[in-house]
């Protein structure tokens, strides 16, 4: 057993920490405060981060990326999230799908898509699963063929014609390439009838609809993609037709979780919690009441205790699942850790806000962290995500 980081891991961590402190944090509140969700994005921070490797760090070395391991990725996600959770997520969203490209795309597809991805500092990736009437049905699919996603793809010679609508697509308004799940057999249950397509932004018949106006994670773009007889070449099918379950077992995932997604949310939450703990401790040590630092008060100490113990428990758990990912240990841990991160990020950010408000300070950043944390309920900790993790336990 050894918790020491390698020099390379430590170097990535330090670079990310510096970037978060010097570049991300200064723009974080300002971006959060922009009312129009289409305007919160900032290409400069993406370009700067990309030049440091934060966009492409998950791409394998043989394809020209940095080939970092999951431990490094977890460290970097947490550090970036200390600056801004949504900006961290924008970068790691690219890792998520570059993991997928590496694991599931053909050599030809890798050549066609990985190369431009690596060369262009503004090349972002996205993936479309959710649809207006299919949320948890995609996560825990029932056998009914009518349940789940409805976007259709019909084959016409060398092309597929896509029709339908995706919603809640991350990076929709800024991405250059999307992985789109579509139903290629209307009569079979979801798992046997779905195909994944690589769909470049300039695909004819595809357009971006509304950009969602989220409570938190303002920087992170999330929108609709509408397919109106969109033409996608057959060469862009990922894996087999009717064989999309690519981000899980077939794509090489032996971790029992989604290859990367569970770790991603848990590591990002850790960074937010670190930020909240640091804010709360600083407040308690500097702000006074009755002439004495808040830190002297027992009720304050007990809140700080809860914040820190949850954060340190989460850190321990995150680093463990990152290592387990690297070693392809099969367990339910990644999902459990993601569920846990929901409880932790919300409790810790809420306690931080309470401490500030109780001291007469309504800090906008403390409030932002709470809003950022709310999205975990849906992405990481709702009852479907929890039942999904539990069902892995019994396997």
């Amino acid at each position, binding site marked *: 057993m050894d918790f020491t980081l390698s020099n390379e891991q430590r170097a990535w961590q330090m670079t990310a920490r510096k970037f978060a402190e010097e570049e991300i944090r200064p723009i974080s509140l300002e971006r959060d*405060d922009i*009312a129009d969700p289409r305007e919160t994005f900032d290409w400069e921070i993406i370009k700067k981060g990309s030049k440091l490797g934060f966009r492409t760090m998950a791409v394998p070395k043989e394809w020209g990326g940095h080939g970092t391991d999951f431990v490094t990725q977890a460290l970097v996600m947490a550090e970036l999230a200390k600056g801004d959770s949504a900006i961290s997520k924008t970068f790691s969203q690219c890792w998520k799908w570059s993991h997928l490209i590496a694991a599931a795309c053909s050599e030809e597809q890798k050549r066609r898509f990985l190369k431009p991805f690596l060369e262009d500092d503004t090349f972002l990736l996205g993936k479309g699963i*959710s649809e207006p*009437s299919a*949320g*948890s*049905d995609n996560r*825990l699919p*029932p056998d*009914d063929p*009518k*349940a789940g996603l409805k976007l259709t793809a019909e084959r016409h010679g060398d092309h597929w014609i896509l029709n339908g609508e995706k*919603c*809640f697509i991350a990076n929709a308004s800024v991405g250059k390439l999307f992985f789109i799940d579509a139903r290629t057999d209307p009569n079979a249950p979801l798992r046997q009838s779905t195909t994944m397509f690589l769909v470049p932004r300039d695909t004819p018949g595809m357009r971006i609809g509304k950009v*969602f*106006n*989220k*409570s*938190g994670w303002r920087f992170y773009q999330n929108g609709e993609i509408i397919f109106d007889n969109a033409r996608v070449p057959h060469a862009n099918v990922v894996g087999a037709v009717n064989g999309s379950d690519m981000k899980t077992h077939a794509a090489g995932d032996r971790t029992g979780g989604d290859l990367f997604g569970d770790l991603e949310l848990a590591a990002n939450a850790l960074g937010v919690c670190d930020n909240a703990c640091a804010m709360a401790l600083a407040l308690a040590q500097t702000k006074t*009441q*009755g*002439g*004495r630092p808040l830190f*002297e*008060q027992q*009720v*304050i100490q007990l*809140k700080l205790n809860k914040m820190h113990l949850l954060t340190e428990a989460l850190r321990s758990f995150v680093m463990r699942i990152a290592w387990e990912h690297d070693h392809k240990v099969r367990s339910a841990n990644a999902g459990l850790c993601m569920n846990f991160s929901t409880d932790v990020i*919300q409790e810790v950010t809420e306690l931080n*806000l*309470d401490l500030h*408000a*109780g001291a*007469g300070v*309504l800090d*906008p950043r403390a*409030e932002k962290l*709470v809003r950022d944390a*709310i*999205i975990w*309920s*849906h992405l990481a900790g*709702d*009852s*479907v995500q929890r*039942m999904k993790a539990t069902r892995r336990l019994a396997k």
Partner: protein
Amino acid sequence: MYSLHLSPEQLQIRDTVRDFVAREIKPLALNPNRLEAPARPLLVEALEQASRIGLRTFALSEDAGGAGADNLTCCIVTEELAVGDPDVAAVLAQTSILARALFDSLMTPEQRARFLPAFVAKHRYHIALAEHEDGRDSMLGVNYHRPQASEPRFSTAAVRSGDEWIIQGRKDRVVGASIAALFAVRASVGDDGATATLLVPRDAPGLSVSEKEASPRWQHGACGSVTLDHCRVPAQNFLAADAALFVDEGRRIPQEQALALGIGRAAYEAALDYAQLRVQGGRPIIEHQAIGAKLAEMAVRLEVARAAIWQAAWASDHPDAFADASLPDLPLSTIAAVFASEAIYRVAKDAAECFGATGVMRDMPLHKYVQDARTCLHSGMESSEAKLRIAEALARYRRPGSAAVLAAE
């Protein structure tokens, strides 16, 4: 005799307000454009309509032109209003309760004659309490169970000059600042820093209102700040006896909790409706155990909170029930607040979770409910502070000279 029957009048006013909220307030309050907008201007038209059905003067005695409602009925109305819009609910609650206190008991006949007719006549006439000052440390905190706590001096000061009082200072978090026609301003007077209350009309020279709200919000009611720069009011605007305005917080009308309850109910009702419509796994999601159990938890929290809030509301009107031991000798309003604010925030979060991704979108109601419930967590006393105050009451701790302090509070 113990009875939970509401009177026919109470049932009727509840139905009337519920209907009013559904027809007149919800369509405005839940308009996606309004939901998405960074600012949330007060629904002045709706306030005026509410005044026309008697809600602005609801607690004022019938003699004075109001409806003479008791505190429980006021809380019932506040809950209903808050289901629609918490700002409307907060402003009406404040005006109505202040009007009763001022016109029915605290003002001299001269003051009453001067202010009451306009108040009753004008549907847009609101009254606001200007009390809070940034940086004034009124916490118990370090002084828990220590003798030194006393009411800190207001930095806003009023000085007598001939026939006038001259007020200098700045108040923030003033509920309904944008619309109030009359402010009850708390200030220190004299060398000993004693606290007094002055009636300051909006048009008093030297008074200015800034409507810019803090972001995030401290509390509901479209708060703003009031600056008093050499502000002059006639000597007769001094409120001789203001104690009744600032009774023991532990026993006062739990309006803020009723307001939180309305927010929680709106969130819960939205989730209950949605869970019966939204189909996943081939069934409406309410038919899945996980969602059913979550809705049940929400209902439990809301019903239990309401029982505690109504108890505190009724108690705030019936001190004799403490005396005869029908109720425990405890700060019931603070107790209701500690429970309700946290319980209701959880209700709102759980309700939003039922909506999946749409639960966090700014153009959708659930985001608003969560934010509004969170504001309630910070609008009153912070929870640890409230617990320390309850703890002093449990221990029957009395600060030296606290009788006087309490009376002045």
